[in-house]
């Protein structure tokens, strides 16, 4: 027993805990790091449209920023339990979420889009999803959009934490639903045989959710002010141009 414990403790002591950098009140922002091109990782570098916008906002507000990455389905839980201050992950404003959180002003205007494997001509839009298997991100607004369709019970909805684009390209599901700009960008830049199917079927607006507390409201006002400044001086538009080639920050 002693030998075993000693060995284990030796192994443990090899990895002394990394010291936690004490920062005075940084803005803690949650994102999945798995939603190209809004938030993703290349060579350990967190990148994306949401990262750039958040960095610009933080600079405008004069605040330090600390990114916390977790699976999308865990982000709202982290916001709820006060581990992060807001979520920057192309969060769509929905009635459901408005009951629980307060939102900043919108910073992205976009639409929901059906995406299929290249060459699939059977699906030309959302009404063709009847009887099909469709992938969505777990806990995302697109999941709700599908479930609200009058023929929702005829769609086999599969929820994913990530990698739904791959599964669609592999033909494991017939389609996935995502926002239009991300989908277009993936099709343009990544080696996956996918195609947009039909027009967008629901307008979505993205904003930052905050807890409905005094501190949350104060933070929201601070963010709104910074957003307005960045909108006026063209920063939002130029970041959008960089990632999407168009300005998605205007209605």
């Amino acid at each position, binding site marked *: 027993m002693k030998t075993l414990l000693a060995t284990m403790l030796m192994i443990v002591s090899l990895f002394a805990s990394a010291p936690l950098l004490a920062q005075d009140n940084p803005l803690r922002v949650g994102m999945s790091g798995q939603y190209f091109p809004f938030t993703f990782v290349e060579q350990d570098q967190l990148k994306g449209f949401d990262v750039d916008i958040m960095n610009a906002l933080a600079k405008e507000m004069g605040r330090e920023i600390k990114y916390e990455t977790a*699976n999308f389905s865990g982000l709202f839980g982290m916001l709820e339990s006060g581990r992060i201050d807001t979520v920057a992950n192309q969060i769509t404003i929905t009635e459901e979420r408005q009951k629980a959180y307060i939102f900043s002003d919108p910073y992205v205007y976009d639409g929901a889009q059906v995406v299929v494997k290249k060459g699939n001509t059977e699906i030309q839009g959302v009404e063709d999803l009847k009887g099909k298997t469709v992938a969505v991100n777990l806990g995302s607004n697109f999941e709700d959009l599908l479930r609200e369709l009058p023929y929702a019970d005829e769609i086999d909805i599969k929820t994913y934490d990530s990698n739904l684009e791959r599964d669609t390209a592999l033909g494991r599901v017939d389609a996935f639903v995502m926002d239009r700009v991300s989908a277009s960008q993936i099709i343009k830049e990544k080696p996956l045989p996918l195609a947009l199917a039909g027009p967008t079927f629901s307008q979505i607006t993205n904003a930052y959710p905050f807890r409905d507390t005094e501190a949350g409201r104060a933070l929201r006002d601070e963010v709104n002010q910074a957003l307005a400044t960045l909108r006026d001086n063209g920063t939002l538009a130029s970041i959008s141009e960089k990632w999407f080639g168009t300005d998605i920050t205007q209605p």
Partner: protein
Amino acid sequence: MDVLNVDYMLGLVPVLLRYLPLTLQLAGIGMALALILACLFAVVRVLRIPVLNQLTILFISFFRGTPLLVQLFLFYYGLPQLVSALTVIDGITATIMGLTMHFSAYMAESIRAAIVGVDRSQTEAALSIGMTNGQLMRRIVLPQATRVALPTLMNYFIDMIKATSLAFTLGVTELMGATQKEASGSFLYFEAFIVAAIIYWIVVELLSKVQHYLEIRLNKAYSR
């Protein structure tokens, strides 16, 4: 997508290796704590200490009977809802708590089996020369039980290393989390996950070497 992107894979190795210490840290601390807890449980069960015995049975039943992921979510997302001060439990702590409790429940049973497996005649002999229960456990039973339990415990440790890959669900970017994020940026899934798989594999192989060495050491006393 017909050819493996080897350059990308090679570039990924140093990036992912940065997250290996955290993976090993989670499993290492989890294992050390789980061992202590499991030994206590096993002794309580073997000596049938009243009240504690019943509590231990309940604990083991719960932590063996529910998925690790459910337990992790309970600690991390569930508890702060009841007591808001419990948000001090960060992802790393919650992961270690989950691993410790989950695996100690399993390990307690295999340690108990190893203890019970030590021949009764030895226990009687020890008690007849006036050893206390504690001395009996420390000097006679546990050293022999360790030898029997070692392969199983090592298996649990290997399992635990792989179970750390669930930590990303709690916002802890360890080896698997880092791999997932890299893959979703590049869409080169096969390349990213095969690199991660090879890293895990090498670590487990090294541990098997350690196990082999420990077995030889522990068997010294018994070789004829």
